[in-house]
């Protein structure tokens, strides 16, 4: 086992399976080639290096044992290189970094994932499934641009079977879509919440998280009961490069998951 993730030198992982999720999102299973990184917790991320192309932060979206699963949306050079990497490709991995979700011992849970934001929630869903009996209502709200952009659709049934209410909504429907159309907040409006015992987990575009978090706090949750996963430019992953500063936070070190009590005043400031 490696002793510390706090290094700029990557460890090698091989792509052992590759599943295209959507037109621009791919899920990769990675197994270590030599020493593995330390074990991770849901909500944490790693820095993934594509040979000669560069390195990007990616949330862990699953994995057992030493396996790490990443779900990647191709938006630029590095993510494109990772998305097209065939099985057998060796990537560099550093981490895991940051604070993950903090799951309470009991109560109701509301998980909201927008777009690729569902990726870091997926391991949380798995953990909740394993301890399902401890919690009351568990709602998972999933939003995507179009039905074709929905992630992990083949898992929704299993999630539902384990007692999680999965609600799905898209911005724009296609021809074969019989589900809901609109913004995630409209799903939220229909949920009955018990603000006393609910914990909420949000990951998606910043604007989505703000709207939902405000909605939740308007309905009586304290900001401390809402967790959000933040995103900033990252170069090191452990608080020494400075890029991910968000007010007092170093998102890589103090985040990416933080409670809304901390994030709210920061999100209110322009260009922070």
């Amino acid at each position, binding site marked *: 086992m490696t002793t510390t993730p706090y290094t700029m030198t990557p460890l090698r992982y091989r792509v052992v399976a590759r599943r295209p999720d959507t037109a621009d999102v791919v899920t990769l299973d990675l197994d270590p080639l030599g020493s593995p990184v330390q074990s991770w917790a849901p909500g944490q991320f790693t820095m993934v290096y594509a*040979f*000669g*192309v*560069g390195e990007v932060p990616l949330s862990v979206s699953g994995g057992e044992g030493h396996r790490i699963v990443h779900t990647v949306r191709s938006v*630029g*050079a*590095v993510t*494109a*290189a990772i998305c097209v990497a065939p099985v057998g490709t060796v990537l560099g991995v550093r981490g895991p970094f940051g604070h993950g979700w903090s799951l309470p011992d009991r109560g109701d849970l509301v998980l909201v994932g927008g777009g690729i934001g569902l990726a870091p929630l997926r391991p949380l869903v798995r953990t909740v499934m394993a301890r399902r009996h401890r919690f009351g209502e568990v709602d998972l709200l999933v939003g995507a641009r179009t039905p074709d952009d929905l992630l992990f659709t083949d898992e929704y049934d299993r999630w539902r079977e384990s007692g999680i209410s999965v609600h799905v909504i898209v911005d724009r429907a296609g021809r074969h879509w019989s589900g809901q159309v609109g913004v995630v907040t409209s799903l939220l409006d229909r949920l009955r919440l018990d603000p006393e015992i609910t914990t909420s987990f949000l990951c998606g575009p910043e604007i989505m998280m703000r709207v939902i978090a405000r909605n939740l706090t308007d309905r009586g949750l304290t900001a401390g009961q809402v967790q959000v996963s933040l995103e900033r430019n990252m170069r090191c992953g452990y608080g020494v490069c400075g890029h991910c500063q968000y007010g007092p936070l170093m998102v890589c070190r103090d985040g990416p998951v933080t409670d809304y009590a901390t994030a709210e005043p920061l999100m209110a400031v322009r260009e922070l």
Partner: protein
Amino acid sequence: MNTPEERPTLAVWKFASCDGCQLALLDCEDELLTLADRVQIAHFTEATRATVAGPYDVSLVEGSITTPADRDRIMRIRQNSRLLVTIGACASAGGIQALRNFADVSEFRSIVYARPDYIETLDRSLPIGEVVPVDAELRGCPIDRGQLLDLLTAMLAGRRPHLPDRPVCGECKLRGTSCLLVTGRAPCLGPVTRAGCGAICPAANRGCFGCYGPIGDPNTAALIPALRAAGLDEDGVRRIFRTFNAAAPAFADAARGEEGEQR
């Protein structure tokens, strides 16, 4: 090594320019032959008379557009190129010959030519980006060999080339040069000029004269008093902005502002 058919094709084109920027490619002495193994040099008249028909994966374009015929030619090249990269101040901002943009061209013609009627030129020296879309720009008069190599290796690797939008000051401080403006040694455009050269001028004890053109958001207005304090008069300020990137909007505006003040 790739077989020729698999190799991406590279074309180098020249418009109004001094050839210096394409020479930077031949100046990659240690890498040139390996590069030629990895890419097919499909059109590069400075190096070979062999030409391969397009389309081209990458076109490097040197020089500015100054004649109607060249305007047509760059459009054809654009159609034939997957990626079009401008190399140098001429291609990216019109170059030194864009000084004509601020003068009467017919007068220019008659200064140089006895029979100006033979000369067919545009009134302005146009950057390539004003005529066709451009995928990337290598700045500088001339470009930096290291940046060119990074661009080419990045394209081969699928990487984004490292062309940081930071001022020359960043590189100047990295190499430990003491600031010319602060020590009062020379007026310097470093704070508003895009990095890439390695801050070679301040290191040679002279002010940056802006050959890489403006950064993304230059505050030229705030710099001008410092240039004055370092010894430039209004005319000097106008001239320093009006050299190799005279037609870059931020520099053109700064120079025009000074003209206004003179009146």
